[in-house]
């Protein structure tokens, strides 16, 4: 096994023991990127020089006994929706092509303060609108399990980078499932923290009442380690929770011991059955059985309003997105395009021409839908109604959590589909987020853990574990217990079975 094929937790131990240097670890990942990213296309920008400099600084600190955190020296990839000072930040859009932010997002600042070298920026659906990463203006990312298939989205770049061993850790953002669904279809782990648990400062807003950054990793413990680095209160985000994080690493370690005695696990009746692939459901049932065998108490819960979650989301999200993306006005940053054949065009005409040229199809669709939902005469019927249904969904969660400590469902209804299959069918694309959206509407935390390979296509599926707001520790306890049971059953990590990059060196 090559040194890049290990976990971040193990790398941290090796660094602490002096068995390897941060420069060596970083160089190995840069070599891996050089070898496979031509095919995977997980990265939009690789900062080899900067990453190696940061790694050298980490080694120097360690030699002085001044390491900044347990992950000091462990390299990471960052989704291109996070502002990174001195590194291009495009959000997968032409309208921000070449933009270099003059400041760091709080998440990025915390990575730097903890000593993690930043390998580069990962590909994504334009402004995080999509479930396949095909809506990137810079071309799709490919799934390391099968290069003809999508890696999920919007954070397909971060998930694929981790699945292809190009990075041990990555940052994602999850507005309707963009961390968890890519995790499920690439056989990796993704966590959407409680809304407000990780700062949104410097995260380019899609739908600000739903957006949440979180860890993209290969193991549950790695996610907990990263979550503790990036999480916690930030005075620069008015929606940031002003309370300490629960002990997440401790929760993951406790969970890994495999005992779920006394934990009530609730299977959500509405998130399964029709529309879900048979192999996904089979792996889900198997995971539930393993949790019961580990001592968990199984209850079935009903969340009747969840059937309206998708419609609610596709009113609230476009409404917020149409407002948030109004900032791309061709005046202060980003693309400026002058309309053809217009002498001395006005600022408004320049804005129109710029947004026509700079935004892709899906972004235009959602901005127009949001403009419609917010327009007078339709506001009450659409946006106002959606905000009320959002209340009903939160009430369903509150009721369900009186019966169960965590809620379970398949993360995504299917395994990875083929590139191009749903690209021009927005509704079919939206259905991929069926099971992940309710958590965003209600702000509760969730994790996706690999559940195995679907029998019909041999592709990975995921189990989603949801917990009450601010109880992120529960997703780590239960996620780690399930991961331990499944890893034992498989005889090793699921990713060991990935064959999409076989024959590629390094």
């Amino acid at each position, binding site marked *: 096994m090559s040194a890049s094929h290990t976990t971040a937790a193990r790398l941290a131990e090796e660094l602490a023991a002096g068995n390897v240097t941060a420069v060596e670890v970083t160089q190995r990942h840069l070599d891996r990127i050089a070898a496979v990213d031509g095919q995977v296309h997980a990265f939009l920008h690789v900062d080899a020089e900067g990453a190696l400099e940061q790694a050298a600084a980490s080694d120097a600190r360690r030699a002085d006994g001044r390491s900044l955190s347990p992950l000091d020296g462990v390299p990471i990839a960052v989704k291109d929706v996070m502002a990174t000072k001195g590194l291009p930040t495009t959000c997968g859009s032409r309208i921000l092509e070449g933009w270099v932010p003059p400041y760091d997002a709080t998440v990025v600042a915390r990575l730097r303060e903890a000593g993690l070298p930043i390998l580069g920026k990962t590909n994504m659906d334009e402004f995080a609108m999509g479930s396949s990463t095909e809506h990137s203006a810079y071309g799709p990312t490919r799934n390391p399990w099968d290069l003809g298939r999508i890696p999920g989205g919007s954070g397909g770049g971060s998930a694929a980078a981790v699945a292809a061993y190009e990075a041990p850790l990555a940052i994602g953002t999850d507005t309707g499932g963009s961390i968890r669904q890519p995790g499920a279809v690439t056989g990796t782990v993704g966590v959407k923290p409680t809304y407000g648990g990780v700062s949104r400062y410097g995260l380019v807003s899609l739908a600000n009442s739903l957006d949440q950054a979180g860890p993209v990793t290969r193991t549950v413990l790695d996610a907990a380690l990263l979550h503790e680095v990036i999480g916690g209160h930030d005075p620069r985000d008015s929606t940031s929770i002003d309370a300490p994080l629960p002990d997440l690493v401790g929760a993951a370690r406790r969970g890994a011991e495999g005992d779920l005695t006394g934990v009530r696990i609730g299977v959500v009746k509405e998130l399964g059955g029709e529309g879900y692939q048979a192999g996904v459901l089979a792996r889900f049932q198997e995971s539930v059985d393993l949790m019961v065998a580990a001592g968990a108490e199984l209850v079935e819960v009903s969340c009747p309003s969840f059937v309206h979650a998708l419609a609610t989301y596709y009113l609230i999200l476009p409404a917020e997105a149409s407002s948030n993306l109004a900032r791309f006005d061709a005046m202060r940053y980003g693309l400026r395009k002058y309309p053809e054949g217009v002498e001395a065009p006005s600022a408004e005409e320049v804005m129109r021409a710029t*947004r*026509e040229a700079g935004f892709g199809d899906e972004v235009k669709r959602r901005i127009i839908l949001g403009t419609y939902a917010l327009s007078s005469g339709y506001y009450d019927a659409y946006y106002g109604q959606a905000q009320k249904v959002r*209340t009903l969904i939160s009430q369903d969660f509150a009721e369900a959590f009186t019966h169960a400590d965590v809620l379970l469902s398949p993360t995504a209804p299917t395994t990875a589909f083929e590139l191009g299959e749903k690209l021009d069918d927005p509704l079919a694309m939206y259905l991929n987020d069926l099971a992940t959206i309710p958590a965003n509407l209600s702000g509760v935390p969730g994790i996706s853990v690999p559940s195995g390979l679907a029998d019909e296509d041999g592709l990975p599926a995921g189990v989603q574990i949801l917990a009450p707001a601010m109880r992120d520790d529960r997703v780590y306890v239960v996620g780690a217990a399930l991961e331990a049971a499944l890893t034992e059953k498989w005889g090793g990590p699921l990713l060991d079975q990935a064959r999409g990059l076989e024959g590629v060196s390094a």
Partner: protein
Amino acid sequence: MATTPSITRDEVAHLANLARIDLTDAELDHLAPQLSVILESVASISGVADENTPPTSHALPLTNVFREDVVTPGLTADEALSGAPEHEGQRFKVPRILGDEQ
């Protein structure tokens, strides 16, 4: 609300105008039917919640945030202008914002 929601091509053109996006004829032809399909689908939530259901704007309750009125470092003028398509001195340079008659 409308009984059978749909968006006509003209309405899409109007909305695009409100959203400050030029759309080509081909885009209008393509987008209008797609938006109608999406709208039909999301219209299913009409009538789900009654008038007694309070709306939720944020997942967790928000309280206003205050801080001490002290100066903290911000971007320099050069940094703020670093991404501007055009600038002049310490100012963003923009196309004209008024019509000819003004």
